[in-house]
């Protein structure tokens, strides 16, 4: 196989070798069900506890506030649906944003069908939520504010602390989808006034199919998956022990390497952004110039369509994405790019490149040359482009 330059780490990541090593014994050796009585199962139970502790520490939370799920989507669904249910007597109004992941947006639409009202906040041209609009949107029957920590497409980081303060001043629960942010930026649930937080293992070099929802003690959320007494009776199902162990290891690695890793990623990211903006005409950077995820670059190339661009990059061995991977089945232009004000046809020509710790300067140089070549070719084929 030709060399692969994988720049789609916001879609998913490689499971780290250390994570594999940590997980494997729990498949074939210590495979006991943590709920069982015998000592052999105690090994599994202990592994769960340790992972929970690692994750709690990473968030400055308590162990019994971490609830494992099958991933970010389940955590998002749980947070919204089961607080909506639990607090319905207080009110049926929820505030979120126009740039959330579909796991939040489609859950919001579902709740609307059930009789809840959902306000979708605008964002500015950089993708930042407007705090004054948030304040105005709050009503006496508002029960939940859900704003993502960082956007998966354009990488913009939200003023989470300020949002948390506004929520808590009004006695409203605050949930944040931190699937993209967790492991990339430091998070302190107390300092940021976060009541619930979603995360997913495979976004931080952990395994797929595992994630968690942080639930602050005292939040009266219902169960989402009913059944056995796992996860303090809040989330049924035999625990994915290897997945949980892997997630714990991934979080440990992410926290330990965060400073160095993200500093390096930022440098490469900025180098990429600077070269592309300088060397490819009719190009813009989407998202905030500085308040963005360390590994995220997102461009729009005018007169160029995204899928064609991706396929041509793929032919050069470069993996990138156009909009969110999860929605590539859909033909709609990215709701995030529309929300920051891009016209339809420019929203279409977006390219997201998300770096990893393994990305090198040589990779970036190769990618920039490839982009230049491809954009020129596609523009020459475009009926929209006149040179």
């Amino acid at each position: 196989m030709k060399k692969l330059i994988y720049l789609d780490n916001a879609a998913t990541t490689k499971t780290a070798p250390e994570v594999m090593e940590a997980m494997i014994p729990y498949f074939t050796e210590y495979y006991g069900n943590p709920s069982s009585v015998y000592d052999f199962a105690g090994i599994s139970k202990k592994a769960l506890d340790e992972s929970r502790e690692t994750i709690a520490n990473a968030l400055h939370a308590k162990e019994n506030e971490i609830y494992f799920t099958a991933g970010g989507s389940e955590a998002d669904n749980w947070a919204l649906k089961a607080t909506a249910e639990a607090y319905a007597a207080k009110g049926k109004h929820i505030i979120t944003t126009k740039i959330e992941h579909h796991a939040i947006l489609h859950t919001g639409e579902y709740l609307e069908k059930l009789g809840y009202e959902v306000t979708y906040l605008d964002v500015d041209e950089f993708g930042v939520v407007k705090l004054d609009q948030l304040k105005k949107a709050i009503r006496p029957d508002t029960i939940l504010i859900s704003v993502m920590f960082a956007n998966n497409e354009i990488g913009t980081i939200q003023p989470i602390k300020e949002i948390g303060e506004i929520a808590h001043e009004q006695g409203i629960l605050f949930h944040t989808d931190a699937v993209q942010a967790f492991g990339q930026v430091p998070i302190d649930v107390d300092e940021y006034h976060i009541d619930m937080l979603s995360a997913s293992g495979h976004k931080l070099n952990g395994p797929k199919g595992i994630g968690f929802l942080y639930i602050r003690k005292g939040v009266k959320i219902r169960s989402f998956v009913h059944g056995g007494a796992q996860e303090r009776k809040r989330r049924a199902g035999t625990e994915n022990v290897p997945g949980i162990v892997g997630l714990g290891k991934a979080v440990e690695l992410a926290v330990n390497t965060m400073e160095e890793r993200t500093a390096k990623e930022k440098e490469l990211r900025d180098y990429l952004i600077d070269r592309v903006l300088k060397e490819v005409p009719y190009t813009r950077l989407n998202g905030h110039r500085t308040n963005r995820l360390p590994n995220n670059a997102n461009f729009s190339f005018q007169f160029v369509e995204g899928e064609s661009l991706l396929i041509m990059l793929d032919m050069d061995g470069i993996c990138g994405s156009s909009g969110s991977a999860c929605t590539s089945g859909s033909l709609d232009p990215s709701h995030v790019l529309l929300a920051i004000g891009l016209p339809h046809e420019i929203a279409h020509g977006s390219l997201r490149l998300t770096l990893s710790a393994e990305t090198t300067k040589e990779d970036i140089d190769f990618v920039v040359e490839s982009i230049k070549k491809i954009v020129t070719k596609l523009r020459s084929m475009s009926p929209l482009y006149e040179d």
Partner: protein
Amino acid sequence: MYSEKVMDHFQNPRNVGEIENASGVGTVGNAKCGDIMRMYLDIDDDGIIRDCKFKTFGCGAAVATSSMATELVKGKTVQEALEITNKAVMEALDGLPPVKVHCSLLAEEAIHAALWDYAQKHDIKIEGLEKPKSDISEEEDEEDY
């Protein structure tokens, strides 16, 4: 995702470009996906399509179907060109993923639009040709869960 034929026509699209003083030019778009295809026809006095070129802003399937459509159209009579359906284009490309079927409709419609333009300019009536829609998007029939 795409067949080898599609990938070939995407990577090496035939007949990209414009024809100056074309006999007919048609531009169609799909509002849903935002893609746009423009087809140029050079038709001689016997009604034979001598040349055909295209410009497309669109996905891989859109580029490949444009390319294949121009190939199919060349050398055909106007009447024969009119009978080229999106199905024929897809078959010539060894198929398209279900979500990409509409891209081939874009090609069919672009041919029609170019022929319509030719007919208008030369004041001809082409049997079976209707005024093309400028937007070919249809209702998706996918279920909502």
